């Protein structure tokens, strides 16, 4: 982005490099030649293409702080940010609700597959004194059809989205909401299996589907 844009008062057009990192400690940022899913989703780091909150007031400038800083002034990530409160399709501030349904031209938020009430963080943002605390993000999905064959794909897309968007101290648990899906257990087990998820994302067909679902997020 051109230098002149950097002074633009409109926060929604802040250049990637200007957005402060929400990552919790610089020492933990891992930029490498071949980061896991970058090729699928974003050519940049998560906080660039998918900033969690475009309100610049919540960001603190961490540029000059020490590596072992604790971003005490920064608000912890909460459920609303993960869901994408205040749905506005023209903005790119939403993590989950804007993911597209693999079959229909609607988003997961629109058809209530992802619901704010079914996203839980533990420990809750208020309890997280140390930003390095491992935090569980539990997302219970409600597939639209009982025998939705695409439940696994949707779950995978949600998991991929969160893995890429959240700092590394987040542990993501994606499940089918109790009773909403006939093969809950199998799907949940599969989605919780790191090795299977990693292998699935190396499958070109599946990768294509997920890429398409996530197009509406950026």
């Amino acid at each position: 982005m051109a230098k002149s844009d950097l002074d633009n008062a409109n926060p929604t057009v802040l250049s990637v490099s200007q957005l402060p990192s929400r990552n919790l400690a610089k020492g933990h940022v891992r930029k490498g030649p071949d980061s896991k899913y970058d090729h699928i989703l974003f050519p940049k780091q998560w906080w660039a293409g998918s900033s969690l909150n475009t309100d610049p007031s919540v960001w603190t400038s961490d540029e000059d702080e020490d590596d072992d800083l604790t971003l005490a002034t920064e608000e912890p990530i909460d459920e609303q940010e993960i869901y994408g409160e205040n749905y506005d399709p023209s903005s790119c501030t939403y993590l989950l609700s804007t993911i597209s349904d693999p079959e229909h031209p609607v988003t997961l938020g629109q058809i209530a597959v992802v619901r704010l009430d079914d996203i839980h963080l533990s420990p809750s943002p208020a309890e997280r004194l140390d930003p390095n605390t491992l935090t569980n993000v539990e997302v219970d999905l409600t597939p639209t059809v009982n025998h939705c064959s695409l439940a696994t794909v949707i779950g995978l897309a949600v998991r991929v989205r969160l893995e890429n968007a959240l700092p590394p101290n987040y542990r993501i648990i994606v499940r089918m909401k109790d009773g909403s899906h006939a093969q809950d257990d199998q799907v949940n087990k599969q989605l919780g299996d790191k090795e299977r998820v990693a292998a699935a994302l190396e499958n070109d067909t599946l990768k294509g589907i997920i890429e398409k679902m996530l197009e509406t997020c950026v």
Partner: protein
Amino acid sequence: MAAETTTAILAAPSATTAEITPLPAFSPDLYQRAWASIPHPSLPLIATCHAHSVTVFSLSTLSKHSVLTGGHTRSVRSAAWQPPRGKVSGKEAKRLRLVTGSFDTTAGVWTWDQGRREERLEREIRLQSGEDNKEAEEEEEAEDEWELTLVLEGHENEVKSVNYSPSGQYLATCSRDKSVWIWEDVGNPNPSSEEEEEEEDEDEWETVAVLQEHDGDVKAVAWCPDVPGRKGKYAPPRRYGDDVLASASYDNTVRLWREDGDGEWVCVAVLEGHEGTVWGVAWEGRPRENDKFPRLLSWGADEVIRVWSLKEPEEEEHGEGAAGGGNNTWGFGVPNTMRRSLKEEWECTAVLPKVHKGDIYSVAWSTETGLLASVGSDGVLALYQETANTTEKNEENETNGEAPTTTSAGGWKVLTTVKGAHGPYEINHITWCKRYDAGSERKGEEEMLVTTGDDGVVRPWQVRIQ
């Protein structure tokens, strides 16, 4: 990334203190998820699987030795070094061989011919003193020195684990296709120094078994090491070959496999108890008192580590076994109808104190000290010690339904834990290996731990026991 170390002091019977301190990570940093790091059985080398390749690090310089690339189209999940076969000498002894298991459904057999690179090898073996900086450039050209000499095809889905039997005769591979394959190395089995010139590159493998009894992905395979107990007086009657293979699965079970008198590989035991995917299995490599049969560890998504022991055979069975003891293979031909009774009885004799919150991905059992170390998705590294032979049961065991029932059950104590051993990242693998770096007081003898994480860091840890 200051790792937070806590030291716990053990109460009686043996007051032991342990301290785990991080050593400098291997360089370079891999900057991407690394799955596992496998130390060479005798040389100061360790092979780390990451993305489509394997990076071999030197344990003396703690830096990159060579890279295996271009052989796999998807991630390499596991690797195994070929153990020394019999009394090898000459060129055979200088050849490195590594097998890789990949998500691309194949296993690759890689060969590094040391013959032409004696100097390099010597440099690695020579416990070097630190003035080798200019050799950094040479490392680059090392990348093509590994040759993919054979591709083992057969699995339908991702290969998750590969492991050599202690003699190097067999290789086991396992996959998401729910099967375990056993391959036999039939290429140039007796390399005599005379014929070697022409035959040394001959690779030939035969599939000797395809085992399909698991109901889910097979996550890991491990061969029982060749310790005295494997053939000791407590070993089961010798109707089977010596090799024992354990497999861990997504179906929550562990299975044990042996070759019967007809050359068929059969499942001799199913170990049930885990309430989630079993991520791995590890055999006891330290000889036990009275040459008891090695025990087996299993761990998994249920956050539990279990110790399994072979139930000692009944007296009469035992007698039969002893009678067959002189037979160097598997004794008597047994009719198919009797096979059922040949199942081995294994029981869970201990459950380790619970430390991890989240999947346990890897546990390493020291052949030197008998200490256990575990890692998992919670980023914690935990060290455990078996308390002296006692009938006292672990309190944690009791809540688990599967509490050990026999007096052979030992207790286990947590010696110490390290939180955030790879910062906020998950840790995929842990192994014990010998230290050869300049900082070691007893090179080639002192043991250290090496952890491998999602952050692409391969980190050695000094372990001090008092």
